[in-house]
């Protein structure tokens, strides 16, 4: 594990120095990569580690963003509070949706979640007087310290690093191990006295919370929110990031999110047929690399890890 620590330290050092030599636009992209990686990893807590078909994760991202944006624009509260409230609201929403959906499993769970999520999306999309409807909210006022591109980037980096650390601890904790046990064999877990649904519900709330954090970071980086953030196609895109990187590795979604976001930025310069490319990549990955890029690498170099038992 020593090598991994060194690698992580180097990565962090490299990320810290990025704004020193990158142009402004790329600093913005780097921040988007970081928060999207956080979003994908939070989804992976539910789907990769928990085996729960969280099909509409983007709702928590969107609600985290809207919660933050509404606190910042409509209340005189300090900004720090707004940045906290957004994620908490999405954790709360995750709890409510979880309680409704948790009785079902697999595809049924996923579809009920999609319909609940679409309900939330449709409400946000139409409630012009409160959420701004399909225009969203723009020009959100931020504290000076994080209003500059560099400030936003460093804030995003710090929060993302902190969240990754926390999620890594959660995955390695007894709770995380139990969750993986439930994923691999729910019947046996329940037979040895594990409360399966309670564990899954907690996992959903944690995933919703970190998804909400990613949403609040989006407000900081982009200064605006819009309902497309929580449309179901984006949820599937986040799912693709997890799959592309590898669902059964911790850093897989980070790799997947980085690949997709960067690829989109660079490919869009050359062609308007980004979806075609994305679909082709995804098809190839599903057929040839079902464990994802990172999962494949881990399995190649360290047999026995990075793959579901």
């Amino acid at each position, binding site marked *: 594990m020593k090598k991994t620590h060194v690698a992580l330290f180097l990565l962090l050092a490299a990320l810290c120095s990025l704004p020193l030599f990158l142009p402004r636009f790329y600093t913005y992209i780097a921040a988007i990569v970081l928060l999207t990686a956080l979003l994908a990893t939070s989804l992976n807590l539910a789907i990769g580690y928990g085996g729960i078909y969280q099909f509409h994760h983007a709702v928590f991202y969107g609600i985290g963003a809207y919660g933050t944006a509404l606190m910042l624009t409509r209340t005189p509260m300090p900004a720090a509070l707004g940045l906290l409230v957004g994620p908490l609201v999405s954790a709360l929403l995750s709890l409510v949706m979880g309680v409704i959906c948790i009785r079902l499993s697999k595809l*049924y769970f996923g579809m009920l979640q*999609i319909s*609940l999520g*679409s309900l939330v999306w*449709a409400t946000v999309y*139409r409630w012009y007087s409160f959420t701004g409807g399909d225009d969203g909210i723009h020009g959100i006022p931020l504290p000076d310290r994080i209003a500059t591109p560099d400030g936003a980037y460093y804030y995003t980096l710090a929060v993302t690093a902190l969240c990754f650390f926390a999620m890594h601890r959660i995955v390695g904790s007894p709770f995380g191990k139990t969750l993986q046990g439930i994923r691999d064999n729910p019947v046996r877990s329940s037979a040895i006295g594990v409360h399966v649904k309670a564990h899954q519900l907690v996992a959903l709330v944690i995933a919703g919370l970190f998804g909400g954090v990613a949403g609040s970071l989006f407000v900081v980086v982009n200064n605006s929110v819009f309902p497309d953030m929580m*449309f179901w196609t984006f949820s599937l895109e986040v799912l693709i990031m997890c799959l592309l990187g590898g669902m059964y590795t911790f850093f897989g979604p980070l790799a997947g999110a980085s690949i997709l976001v960067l690829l989109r930025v660079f490919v869009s310069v050359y062609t308007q047929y980004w979806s075609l490319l994305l679909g082709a990549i995804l*098809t190839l990955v599903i057929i040839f690399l079902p464990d994802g890029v990172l999962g494949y690498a881990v399995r190649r170099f360290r047999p026995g890890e990075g793959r579901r038992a």
Partner: protein
Amino acid sequence: MGWLANLVSTGTLSQVLVGLSRTTILFIVSSGLTLILGVLRIPNVAHGSLYMLGAFSAYTVISLLGGGLSGFLAALVIAPMIVAAFGFVLERGFFSYLYDREHLMLLLLTFSFALIIGDLVKIVWGSEYRSVTVPEFFQGSAEIFGLPIPYYNLFLLLIGPFIAVFLWLVINRTKMGKIARAAAVDAEMVSAVGINVGWVFAFTFVLGCFLAGLGGALIAPMVNISLGMDHSLIMEAFLIVIMGGLGNIWGALLGSLIFGLTQSLGILIWPQFGIVFPYLAVVVVLFFRPKGLLSSTW
């Protein structure tokens, strides 16, 4: 009490009838989806894209053959055939190798096909709106209780039950349908008695794709044919299928009725949040009947 006044006004009936004709489209598309789900166990996200492909193909066929009744009817046959042929290639080329994969993988695979088909349509037809005019034969409207209902909507209302009965006959009265139902329950056993399950699956998939294409061809004169028309429809079709019970054709009919009616009545009751009602109906149904209203083949 404004919404109550809206609800009992004379506009309600025509709103319901127009809503029902939209239900027909929803039913045709979602019956194809539920067929594929029930027999092949593939949650086919690309189904909506096939519907879009059907609509664009219908546009091309109609512009080649002229906008008359014969051209329109030809489009209703040829466009779904194009989509079915496309589906045949997809099934033989990809899905037939991947039936044992997890549902999640299949869902993402079909989503990737949806992305690819979306861009292929963009390459072939461009990104502008296309529109098809209702053929002369269906123009005008009938007076029902003093309210005008377009003939085309009446035509859709007639075709819905026709498709339902046709599907019921195919599934319950033909040998292929019976084998498909058996394969839905236990594919291994069906192949053990010497039946080529692969071809049964291919037939079912192609039939499902045909229905998606038919739905697209039928909606063509009613809407602007555009990129992105697949996104909202596939979500609705999935919710209908889940609400009705996976793999159940009558469930798809019931689900479409609930979805179409809550949609059209919802807009009457509360115009701003009308689109919320169908989703609400799905949540209520699944809360009380987690496996859908009618029995599922799963």
